[in-house]
């Protein structure tokens, strides 16, 4: 028996994450890119949770939601905010 509910959840959330990554790649404001990157890592955390890898979810939440945003924010604050062209 194939659980269709898992597949539907994965399909919908991966579709939303695709839109997030698309907007993130073509975003000119780097600060907004950081916010979209946090949204993308939240969606990926759900996907990893449905795929039943709790260790990876714990490490991934700490790293992607907690640390990458702060690291990129410091870099944006020390350098320039808007991407040319």
């Amino acid at each position, binding site marked *: *028996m*194939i*659980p*269709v509910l*898992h*597949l*539907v959840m*994965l*399909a919908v959330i*991966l*579709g939303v*994450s*695709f839109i997030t*990554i*698309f907007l*993130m*790649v073509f975003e000119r404001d*780097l600060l907004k*890119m*950081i916010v979209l*990157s946090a949204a*993308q*890592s939240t969606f*990926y955390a759900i*996907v*990893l949770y449905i*795929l*039943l*890898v*709790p*260790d*990876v979810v714990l*490490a*991934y939440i700490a*790293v*992607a939601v907690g*640390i*990458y945003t702060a*690291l*990129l924010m*410091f*870099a*944006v604050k*020390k*350098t*320039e905010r808007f*991407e*040319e*062209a």
Partner: protein
Amino acid sequence: MMGIGEVFWLYIWLIIMANMGLAIYGLIMRPNILKKIACLTVLADTSFIVLAFIGYRFKYPVSPYIMTNWAPNNATITHFISESVDPLPPTLTITAVVINLSITILLVFLAIRLYEVYGTLDVKKIAMIKKELRGGEK
């Protein structure tokens, strides 16, 4: 003839590959170095998802790879194996997450250093400045 499971499976793999393609596109074509670093993290995260998919089993009574019975016998181990997902791909992923973090720290520090030297993070402008410097020396 594909069943509903295979159709969903193909759709999910296509989405994952499209995510990877977008990340590679941003990594190659976008000029800002911080954008390139963010795209690199997205590419790494998508590869973690691929690894988790390779170890997954599509059946409903499915459990993580952690045995809750601490004094098992042969029957409980067989029952556990019949429900558990594959433990090898998450093992390879765990260290990759942390190492990816440390490499991103290194790249961000290098990017800030590059801004101190050149005054910009746009790779095209950096190439122009380098060309001017080389022309001025000759």
